[in-house]
């Protein structure tokens, strides 16, 4: 079985996601040089970036995100586009900060794995539901797509077909599954939560004890009192020459989802090379 990491980037006018994908890939290869990284994108990748990816795939089919500024809708196509039998999908605004080779073994116990709990930079489980009202109010599983895993298998074919249908017909699904509180835009987290709920597979795709998660840097869930909009304005952080990331002088481990685009500087990108 071949395996690898999938990064998904769609052209966007406001942010250089491709640069983030390069940084993410560099961080993976820094700690796990033999791992394969596949970039799925609609961008013509400049030569200087091509060498950072083992595979570069086009986004197939019609663009499902034509009317969306936040180009995530096409992410449901990752399943069919992945060149791997086993895939770990990461958001591009993430950095890998240690070797997670052993995660593959843990993940192989699942056909499909999503994390439903994330951590703060202080290594605490996030309990604040500030950004999760749609999930809480509608009793949807608390899915974070930022990090997930799938095998190529029949059950997952069904799952991702359904997910695609939800994305394409989000308004109808939203009316039915997010009655109590809804959001007008389609987010992959909500669409995935609906798919998991519809298929009743919560017990198969989550783990109650697992360390297979990531540090989520959305500012309102960090258990601090400051009301500043950006965590990068609130907390000191630095990436050392050994690729150790310190946030508030706390060493970060595993997968770090920095969220804020200004986090990744050119200097940091150079350090990761």
């Amino acid at each position, binding site marked *: 079985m071949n395996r690898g990491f999938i990064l998904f980037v769609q052209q966007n006018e406001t942010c250089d996601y491709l640069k983030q994908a390069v940084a993410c890939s560099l961080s993976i290869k820094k700690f796990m040089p033999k791992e394969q990284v596949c970039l799925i994108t609609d961008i013509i990748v400049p030569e200087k970036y091509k060498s950072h990816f083992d595979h570069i795939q086009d986004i197939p089919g019609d663009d499902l995100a034509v009317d969306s500024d936040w180009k995530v809708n096409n992410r449901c196509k990752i399943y069919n586009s992945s060149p791997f039998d086993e895939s770990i999908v990461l958001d591009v605004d993430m950095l890998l900060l240690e070797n997670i080779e052993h995660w593959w073994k843990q993940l192989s116990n699942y056909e499909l794995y999503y994390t439903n709990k994330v951590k703060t930079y202080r290594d605490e489980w996030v309990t604040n539901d500030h950004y999760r009202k749609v999930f809480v109010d509608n009793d949807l599983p608390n899915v974070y797509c930022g990090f997930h895993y799938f095998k190529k298998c029949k059950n997952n074919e069904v799952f991702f077909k359904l997910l695609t249908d939800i994305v394409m017909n989000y308004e109808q699904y939203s009316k039915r599954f997010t009655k109590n509180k809804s959001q007008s835009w389609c987010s992959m987290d909500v669409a995935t939560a609906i798919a998991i709920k519809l298929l009743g597979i919560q017990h198969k795709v989550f783990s109650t004890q697992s360390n297979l998660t990531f540090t989520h840097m959305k500012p309102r869930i960090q258990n*601090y009192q400051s009301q500043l909009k950006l965590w990068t304005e609130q907390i*000191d952080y630095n990436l050392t020459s050994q690729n150790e990331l310190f946030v*508030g*002088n706390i060493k970060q481990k595993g997968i770090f989802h920095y969220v804020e685009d200004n986090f990744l500087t050119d200097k940091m990108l150079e350090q990761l090379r």
Partner: protein
Amino acid sequence: MTKGVLLFAHNNSTVDYVKQANFCAGQIKKHLDLPVCLITSDKFNEDHNNFNHVIVVEKPSTDQTKRFYNATHSYEDTWNNTSRPDAYSLTPYDETIVMDTDYIVANSNLNKVFESKEDFLINYKAQHVDFESRYTEEMKYVSDTGIEMCWATVFYFKKTERTRILFDLINHIKNEWEFYRFKYQILATNYRNDFAFAIAIHMINDFAKTSWPKQLPSKLFYTTDKDSVDSYVDNKWNFTLERGTKCQIKDMNIHIMNKIGLNKIIDQYE
């Protein structure tokens, strides 16, 4: 392996810490049956006879002050808290419990530390006796965005290479306090042992949270310096809490932060 309790007392014009330490030592002997060593820079009164060892040190030089409250009244005075990091080098025991002189033992729970394989034990949480005061974020972390707090009010250590390094590190943090309080986003300017211990533990754990050190086998209960200390009879403390609530506790170890009020009770008790 020798076992004992270490107390530090440096008087100022507001609080007679040596007198407080003598009372504290009396309770230790009664409930823990352990020898007590006093580290002090002050004149030693022969009436203070609850100590097995007394080590006289030079008065640590400090210019830091704080307000000492006796419920509603307060006094600005010197705060000399800088010798605690020397616990490792000064203790005459192989296994040592260090406690504040205003931490009053009322049961034998702390003796369980000697059954532990751990080389260092401390509290991460503290609980006000009213059980209503929220455990605020301010008490949970050294600063709003900083690391997890620990309470150096009472702790246990045995002499190992790791604890030697820990205390060396605490001394280093004390000496470079300006740098470390900046690095750990601490707003208060005074050196504080709770913070220095938390930082040293964080550093020794490679700047991350780990399962070391574990918690003491005794929860840290406290009353603040805004609470009045009313009486002490038969291992029972009576307090009037800041909001006026009367409160009585019995057979419970307690950190009585109102040092002035505590000393008045000790005067009556003696």
